[in-house]
């Protein structure tokens, strides 16, 4: 659990952030999203004390961040930055081992851990003895993630981790991050300016503007009920309705009674795939099956349209 309590930051007498209060639950993948200069990176860097707040306090598991020596705190928190930020004079292996070595782990333990996290981050063994400049951008970013995971921290901070990658690599790495989060249950705080990335990854999304929180909530909440024009525009205006369908399940608008139809869909599918199915088959009604394949009802196109309006 990471808690911000009335945190403020000033530069040259101007308040650039806050007062900001926010709590990120254990195991969340919280995405801080907003236009450049909105304070999202500043917020992130306050968690590992790279930036200190001028007012208010930040607590991790009820312990104030300021109560620890900064270096000690940072060794316990994973940190991933844009373009990797790898040490160019160290091999991939040594980059990954950075924090374990700072923590004076035994050699054998470090070596074993390098192999372990390389596997988690899908880094091929052959790459471990290369230097960073010999890797592609996507591979460098994987190493950046592996380095952050090396000492097995509970919290991982990611500052625009996929910002410098091409769209294909970015999508692949996003998918892997989601899988990693699901498998490890770590608390991840990620900063991005890309709303689609936030929607694709976040379990919690914090939309920021001019140093303040414009709205926070689950992706569905923000898409369904943007609290201001800024949030509505930022999540994509009219397109938001289509995006929302991604976060709604067939079972939410299911009609009882078994209307027979030769095309079917399952209860846990998204409304978006239901709509796609209707458009490709030319039907306005689909039969709905549950997980074991039994017919439990039907779904109608007007119900999907209704759901996207809410």
């Amino acid at each position: 659990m990471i808690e911000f309590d009335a945190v403020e930051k000033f530069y040259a007498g101007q308040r650039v952030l806050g007062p900001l209060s926010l709590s990120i639950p254990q195991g969340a993948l919280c995405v801080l999203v907003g236009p450049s200069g909105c304070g999202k990176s500043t917020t992130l860097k306050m968690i590992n004390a790279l930036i200190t707040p001028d007012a208010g306090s930040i607590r991790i598991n009820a312990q104030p961040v300021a109560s620890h020596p900064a270096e000690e705190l940072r060794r316990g928190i994973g940190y991933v930055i844009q373009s990797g930020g790898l040490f160019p004079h160290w091999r991939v292996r040594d980059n990954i081992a950075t924090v374990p070595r700072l923590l004076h782990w035994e050699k054998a333990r470090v070596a074993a851990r390098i192999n372990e996290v390389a596997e988690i981050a899908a880094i091929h063994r052959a790459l471990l003895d290369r230097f960073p400049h010999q890797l592609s951008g996507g591979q460098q970013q994987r190493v950046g993630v592996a380095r952050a995971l090396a000492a097995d921290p509970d919290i991982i901070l990611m500052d625009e981790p996929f910002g410098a990658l091409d769209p294909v690599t970015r999508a692949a790495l996003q998918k892997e991050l989601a899988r990693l989060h699901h498998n490890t249950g770590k608390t991840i705080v990620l900063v991005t300016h890309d709303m689609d990335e936030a929607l694709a990854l976040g379990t919690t999304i914090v939309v920021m503007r001019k140093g303040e929180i414009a709205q926070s909530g689950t992706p569905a909440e923000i898409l369904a009920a943007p609290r201001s024009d800024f949030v509505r525009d930022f999540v994509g205006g009219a397109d938001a309705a289509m995006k929302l369908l991604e976060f709604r399940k067939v079972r939410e608008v299911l009609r009882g009674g078994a209307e027979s139809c030769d095309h079917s869909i399952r209860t846990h599918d998204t409304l978006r795939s239901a709509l796609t199915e209707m458009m490709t088959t030319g039907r306005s009604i689909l039969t709905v099956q549950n997980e074991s394949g039994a017919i439990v009802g039907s779904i109608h196109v007007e119900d999907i349209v209704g759901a996207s309006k809410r």
Partner: protein
Amino acid sequence: MSTADLAATRRTSRLALHDRVALVLALVAAAGSFGAFLSIAPNRLADGRPLTLWNVGLSQTAIVLALLVLVFMAAFIGDRTWRSGALFASGAGLLISMLLIAGTAAAAQLDPQEPARRIALGSAFWILFSVGVLACFQGLQHAARIWKALLSLALAAALIAIAASGELNSLSLAREFHAQRATFPTELLRHIGLVAAAVVVASFCAIPLVLAAVYRSGARSAIFTTLNLLQTIPSIALFGLLIAPLSFVAAHVSLAREIGIGGIGAAPALIALVLYGLLPLVRSADAGLRNVPANVQEAARGMGMNAQEIFWKVDLPLALPALVSGLRVVTVQSIGLAIVAALIGAGGLGTFVFQGIGEYALDLVLVGALPTILLAVAADALFQIVIANVRSRP
């Protein structure tokens, strides 16, 4: 055969210029060869009578002509390996034949009736010798590092062997060297010692300045302004300026006098060399440390490194190539500057240079100048090897 193949054949079969440098070298050598190869004077002070290369002897002329033609032809060889080989071979041939021809021709000019006769090397010798050096460099340009080292060492060994064999003893340069043989090793060692001491002291003095310039933003401009100012003082003026304060110190502090500090001698020379060395050292170290990428430093901080760990593990290794290249500049610069130190009694190879100037004996000047050049080239090569290794093994 396709049209592309035909075009390619036509292209390669036509005579084409592949190496402009080789062509220029051949033309320069050809033009320079008409100057005086040796200059024969009845004594040290009188003006010499020139002897051109083409008058030395038929076989000598034929050898030099053949080598020049080889350099010329090398410019038109398409295959890089063959071209490089031809250039190196002709360059090495020029160097060796120049020495041997000069040695035998000088011996033939000796006259027992005229024991004071001086046989000096002329412009044609120096031009052709330089062309030989440059042709060797050009030929080795694309060679693997190991071949570069082996071939240069072999060539250097051959030239030294010729010099040591006594073949060149009739030349006035060798005679001047012979006359100085008692003091030469001492002065050479003094020169090297002075340079080494200056580089070491300057490096230690540079450390606090670099740290202040890089990590204390306020000190930066003051440091660079001062060092730039020092660099603009002409070296002779700086040596002169140091005489008064150091004489004062020596006159009033007996300890200083006992360890050899005085207005003239090694102390002012060392101080001046150190002062001149500071700017290149501080500038290159400053550039190296400030060029460490910001995101790498941020990552280091974010990983939990403290200030010392960031300096030793990240900043310093990444700045190392710049630090070594700073040392290289300072070493080469000090080897040259130390010549002037002889003016204020610090000794070194400059002793021969100034003695030669005073006695109007240009060959004696060369006794000081040639080893200085060789020292500088050797130091430069040594540092290049170090830099290449620092880069490839980060």
